[in-house]
Structures are given as C-alpha cells and as structure tokens.
C-alpha cells in the first residue's frame, strides 16, 4: 500500500538483522566443505548416515501420521459435534504445545523405561506436536460455510459421504500445513530422541561433535539436516499460499448445527479424554509422583534457585536481543512490498527451518574461527537464541504493525512528520502491545531451548532444561523432577499473561 521502497532508517537495521540470521547457515556450508567436497560427500554417503536418515524419516512419518489422526479427529469432535464440554476440550487440547519434548520424554521414560527407543520417541513427539495439526484444522472447520454441507445433504449425500466429499477436501490444506510443521518438529527434535536413546540425525550430529576433534563430519551432517528442513518449510509455505483458495465467501457468521453424537457420545468422550490424559495429565502426574517420591536428602533448593535465576537471565537476554533485531524486519515486512522486503523476511525466517543443534554448531564453528574469546561464553548463546527465535519475534511484530491501518502513517506524514518520527510517534506506540507479547513468547521459547544451550553454555553453567536433560539421561528421575516442575511453572507465567491479553 505504502510507497514501494522502505526508508533507509528501517532498511539498514533490517538488513543487518537478516544478514545476522543467515550468517550461521552460510558459515555451516563453508565449514562443511573445508576439507573438500570429496570429504563432505564421503561423510554424507556412509552407511551410518543412510541409517540415520532412515531412522529420522521413519520417526517423522509415524509421528505425522499419528498427529493427523489425533489432530483431525479431535478437531472435528470439538468443533462440529455436540460433544459435552466442547469448549473446554478445545482449550485443553492445545495445552501440550506448552510441554517441551524432553519433559514428555522424561515422563514416559521414568514411568515406562521399556519405551526407550523408537516407540518412546514417537509417543512423546506425537503427544507434544499434534496441536500443530489440531489448531489449523479446527480453524478450517470453523471457516467452512455450513450452507455447503447443507447443500450436499439436500442433494442426497448422507453425513459420512458429505464429510468425505465436501468437508475433508477443504481440510486438506490445513491438515497438510500442520502435518509439515509436525514433520519439521520431529526432524529437528533433539531433547526427546536423545533421552529416548534413539539415534536420529540430530542425535548423530551431537554424538559426532562430542566424540571427535574433527568437527567436519558434524558440519556435513548438519548441512544434510538443514537441506531436509528447508525443503519442508518450502513445502509448508506453498500449502499455506494455496490455503486461501479453500475459503468460501466472506466469513459467514452463521453457526453450525452441532452433529448429535447419540450412542457415540461415550466413545467420543473416552477418545478425547485418553488423548488429553496422555498428553497433559500423565506428564504432570508423573512429575508430581517423582517430586513426592524424591529423596528429600537430594533436594537442593539453593541450587535450584540458582539455576532458575540463570535460566531467567539468559532467556531475558535472548528475548531482548531477538526483539530488537525483529523490530525493523517486522515493520518492513508489514508495510513494504518488493523483492528486497520479501528477501529480508525470508532471511529472518531462516531460523524457522534450522534445527537448534545446527545453529549451535555453526555458532561454535564461527566463534572458534573468528571470535575465539566468545567461544563458550554467554553472548554467543544469546546470539544463537536470536537466530533461532527471530521468526517468532518477527511474526509477532509484523502482525502487530498490520493491526493498525497504514493510513495513520500517511496522515502523520501529511501533518509534517519525517518517516523516522512517524515510526517513533505512531507505528511503534501502536504496535507496542503486540511487540511485547512477541517478546514474552520469545522469552518462553528461549527458556525451554535445549540443544543450543547444551552446546554453547559456558562451562559449569546449567539452565533448567540442561539440568533436567542431564539428570534424566543418567536415570535419576527424582533429581530431574524439581527442574521440570520449575521450568513448567516459570514458562506458565508469560504464557498465562499472553493468553489473558489475547482474550
């Protein structure tokens, strides 16, 4: 809408942020080719790599299939049927989003140690990531014009035929987009698979990095993982682009007549109850069990307090840097079109496709070579957070700026304000609540981050996440429980505030 090119006061800092986000990716490629393309190729084509690839893909396929089943069935039951307590179910069904994968893994592993391996990884990942399918499918179900289904019924198609031929095809883009996000999650996950001792690409990279002084193989493996995740993100973006076509008319306000469940009410309730029990109640109950069962002698409140403080500190640093970097990118992305602006937005979204472990590795490589004093120091960790979570903050900023109509900025210009002053006096004050919400969200995800923190933390420093991971890894579940509980409590505060602000 506004003039085609962004002013330099915005574009300059935005380009810096974009370059910052792309830096690790570029350096990773350079580093993996350092010993020649032949060497990198020989690493990538070993039997071991093929095995890792197969395991990662198998896990992703199973998790996606399970998430589609859970997500679509719950969405339909909660949105379109007369399920008792439908509203409450739809809130509870999204709660697993707040459970980090390694907490779910901790819960299952400590209760059923035999699950370790593929099954446990698949269960833990499915139960934390099915909301990625549930949310878009539920939204799509709400968006479908009920008149279409009525037309189908009036043309002689029964309820099942109507669902299969009219409703389901319209859910496909939403389900596909959600499924791709789940695949991305499964491929990039490090916490759950490493605790479950199931060797995937991410765990392979970590082992390779820890095991030898030669870090080139780890870099080469990272590049393969990045290629896979970038392909997934590209696919996801394409389905998102087409999703618009599935929408009909201009958002009908007419409510659906809920489908009566009749004799199926009890089984439907049991199904929803089982999913929520496994995904939400079970991890919390396990946590509670270990807290109570834990040996009081091993309780270390001072240590816990200290680690919680450290966690809050690094997360705050990460959120602050990320928000500052995201501000110019978000404004440019919201207000300007053109190749430069589009490119910039895509660069900022790079972190979305990069698994934490690869960002951490590239930071390590970069620091060892060009900024050795930073290696295993806090600033590097904070920078890694910024690269990883820039998409979260850019998305929030962009949405916040889009909320206020651009005509306000035009009016301010016509009343004698320069572009920079319009930014300061109109754009930023209006976007401030949304930007703050983005900062809070970034804060939460920084606090929960595991692989990059593991690799980049200063020697001797622990966050709640790394300590939980270490204790669970050696099987001392009772010792791990307080850290898990503290993490969930601390992450719940900003999440609660965010939820309240939205409603």
């Amino acid at each position, binding site marked *: 809408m506004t003039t085609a090119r962004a002013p330099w006061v915005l574009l300059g800092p935005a380009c810096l942020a974009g370059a910052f986000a792309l830096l690790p990716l570029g350096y990773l490629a350079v580093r993996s080719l350092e010993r020649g393309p032949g060497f990198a190729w020989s690493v990538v084509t070993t039997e071991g790599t093929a095995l890792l690839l197969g395991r990662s893909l198998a896990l992703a396929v199973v998790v996606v299939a399970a998430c589609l089943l859970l997500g679509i069935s719950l969405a339909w039951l909660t949105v379109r049927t007369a399920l008792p307590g439908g509203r409450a179910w739809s809130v509870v069904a999204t709660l697993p989003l707040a459970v980090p994968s390694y907490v779910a893994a901790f819960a299952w592993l400590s209760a059923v140690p035999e699950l370790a391996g593929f099954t446990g990884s698949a269960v833990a990942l499915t139960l934390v990531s099915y909301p990625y399918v549930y949310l878009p499918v539920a939204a799509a179900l709400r968006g479908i014009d009920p008149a279409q289904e009525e037309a189908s019924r009036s043309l002689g198609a029964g309820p099942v035929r109507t669902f299969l031929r009219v409703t389901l095809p319209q859910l496909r883009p939403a389900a596909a987009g959600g499924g791709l996000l789940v695949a991305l999650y499964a491929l990039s996950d490090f916490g759950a698979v490493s605790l479950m001792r199931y060797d995937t690409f991410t765990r392979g990279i970590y082992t390779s990095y820890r095991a030898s002084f030669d870090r080139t193989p780890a870099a080469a493996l990272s590049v393969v993982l990045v290629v896979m995740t970038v392909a997934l993100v590209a696919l996801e973006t394409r389905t998102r682009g087409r999703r618009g076509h599935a929408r009909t008319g201009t958002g009908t306000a007419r409510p659906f007549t809920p489908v009566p469940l009749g004799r199926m009410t009890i089984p439907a309730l049991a199904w929803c109850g089982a999913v929520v029990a496994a995904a939400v109640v079970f991890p919390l109950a396990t946590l509670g069990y270990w807290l109570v069962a834990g040996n009081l002698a091993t309780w270390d409140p001072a240590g816990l307090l200290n680690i919680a403080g450290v966690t809050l500190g690094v997360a705050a640093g990460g959120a602050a840097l990320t928000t500052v970097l995201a501000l110019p990118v978000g404004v440019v992305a919201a207000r300007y079109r053109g190749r430069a602006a589009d490119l910039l937005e895509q660069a900022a979204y790079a972190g979305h496709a990069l698994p934490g472990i690869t960002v951490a590795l590239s930071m390590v490589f970069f620091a060892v070579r060009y900024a050795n004093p930073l290696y295993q120091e806090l600033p590097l960790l904070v920078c890694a957070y910024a690269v990883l979570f820039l998409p979260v903050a850019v998305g929030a900023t962009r949405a916040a700026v889009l909320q206020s109509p651009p005509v306000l900025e*035009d009016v301010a210009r016509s009343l004698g304000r320069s572009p920079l002053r319009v930014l300061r006096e109109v754009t930023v*004050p209006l976007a401030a609540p949304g930007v703050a919400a983005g900062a809070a969200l970034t804060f939460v995800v920084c606090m929960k981050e595991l692989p990059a923190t593991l690799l980049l933390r200063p020697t001797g420093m622990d966050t709640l996440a790394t300590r939980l991971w270490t204790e669970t890894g050696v099987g001392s579940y009772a010792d791990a429980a307080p850290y898990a509980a503290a993490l969930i409590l601390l992450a719940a505060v900003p999440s609660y505030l965010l939820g309240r602000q939205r409603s």
Partner: protein
Amino acid sequence: MTELQIEGLTKAYGPDTTVLHGLDLTVPSGSLAAVLGPSGCGKTTLLRIIAGFLRADAGTVTVGGRTLTGPGTHIPPERRRIGIVPQEGALFPHLSVARNVAFGLTDRAARRRRTEEMLDLVGLAGYGDRMPHELSGGQQQRVALARALAPEPALVLLDEPFNALDSALRAGVRADVRAALRATGATALLVTHDQQEALSTADLVAVVREGRVAQCGSPQDVYSRPIDPWVAGFVGDAVPLPGTAVNDTATTALGTVELRTPTEAPLQGTVLLRPEQLRLTEPGETTPDGIVTDVRYYGHDAMITITVDGLDTPVDIRIGGHVPLRPGDRTGIRITGQATFHL
C-alpha cells in the same frame, strides 16, 4: 493564494495498467472541488500523488505556484502542507482528541489555543480529553477534519470521508465540513463516487473516467450540460432519445425540444433529457402517449416508467408528490426545458 494546478498527470502500475492518462485539473483558491468517478477510475491514485505518497510517472502538481510534483521534483508528504481527511477518519487511537488535533502543530505556544479553536470550528468544543473510540463516527470524522485544518494547510484532501457514516448522519456532517472549510478559506479536493454528494457539496465537479477528466464545471453545469451520454448517466438519471437536430431544435418521438447548443447542418444523434424535464399530460391530446409499466414511489418524488410506441427503450419521468397513475394506465408526455444533443 493556494490554487491547485494539475497538468498531464500520468501514472502506471505496470505495462498494461495505466491508471492516470495525462490528467489536467485546476481548482481555484478557496473553492471546494469534487473529483467524481466510478471505482477504478484513478481517483484514489490521483489523491495519493497530490499528497505525495505516490510518485507520478509524468506531469506536474502545483499548489499556490509551488511545484510539489514535477520532472525531477518530488516533495515528501511532510513538507507539502497538504492536509488529508481519510475514509473513516483514521484518528490516532493512542492519542486523545486534543492531541490528535495538535499533532501537526509545531508552535508550542499557540498549540493549545489553535486546538481549541479548531475543535470549536467543528462543533466539538470540550471534547479534547476524550479518546477516539469514545466518539461516534460523525464526531471522529469532524476531529479528522480539525486535525487536517489545524496546521493551516495550503490544500485539504478529503478521501470519501462520508462513506462510513450512515445516511441519516451523512447530510449533517457534510454540511458541517463544508461550513468549516468555508470558514478557513482552505482550498479542498473531495474524492467521491457518490454523485449526490459531489453535486450538493462542491463548488466545482470534475468527472473522471479512465484516468482523465471527462468534464469539469459547476454542479449545475455538469448536470444540465453533460459532455456525453456517459457523463449524463453518471451524474444523474438520464433519458436518452434518438432524434434529429437542426439549428437550435431537435425532433424526437416525444416531440421537439430546444437545444442548449445549436448545431448547423441537420444531424442524427441522441437527445439527452433529465426525467424531471418530462411532464405527464392527459392522454389522447396533441402530445405523444404511452403506457405506464412501473411506478417507484420515494416519498418526496416518484419515478414512472412509460413504454412509448416508436421507442425501443421505455422512458423515465420524475414527478413530485402525488402519483395519479398505476401500471397499465395510458398517459400523454410533454417535454419542458432544454436538452443536449450528442452524436
């Protein structure tokens, strides 16, 4: 003096989407001009170029002799001294009414007095401490006008400012806006697609079609002397009749009519009348007659559609007050006043 002069303004968004084709327009200092056109005719683009939000491909915009847009010249919006009143007001939601109005005032000493003056002008004295969301749509629109007028701009642009208001409120706000503009003596340009709004509010109406000014003149001029049937139909209801013109009269199936502009040699063409120029007469007399096919009653007047023998399309007649006819009745028709003739 703040005359607005636009010459040869051209703007294209792509190779095949030229929006303005060398548009010319002059608005005398202190008058209120309406740019009237259907959606997509380029009126919003024109407004954005004048305000400086868009760059023109060619052409010039001068206000009071100062070139704002021209070859090699593009004054940024903040240095143009052009106020804008956008659709729906677009008040800054985070600022009070007074701070909205004072937004463009740089002189700190005079800020308070000027703000009060402007709020008084638009009839909202005492509303300074309210927030925009506490005002009705019409009040918001008036604050937007006060905000635009406060820095004493050389020109005020109004972008369909009455669209968002419901029709009961619209006439009142329109009159207030006109009075406020008159009081400040500002030159103003009102963009609209509503012909009633253009005719009743403006001193000067410029009808824009496909990126050019098709006709520009006083509201009466544009209504009674449309340059072609399209303009005639756009600014009001028109009755087109096939006819033959000789000197200053034309002959049609409804009789002869005097022309506003005489022609010379006999010509075949279209004679344009307004529905209120036709009168009903008793049937079967000297005037031609037809059969009533439809009656639309509006209260203050009514439109009657009549099918006439020898005419392919029925004609509309507007009459005031009482409707003496029903569909199926036969009636005579008489022409009054003058018509325009088009080839």
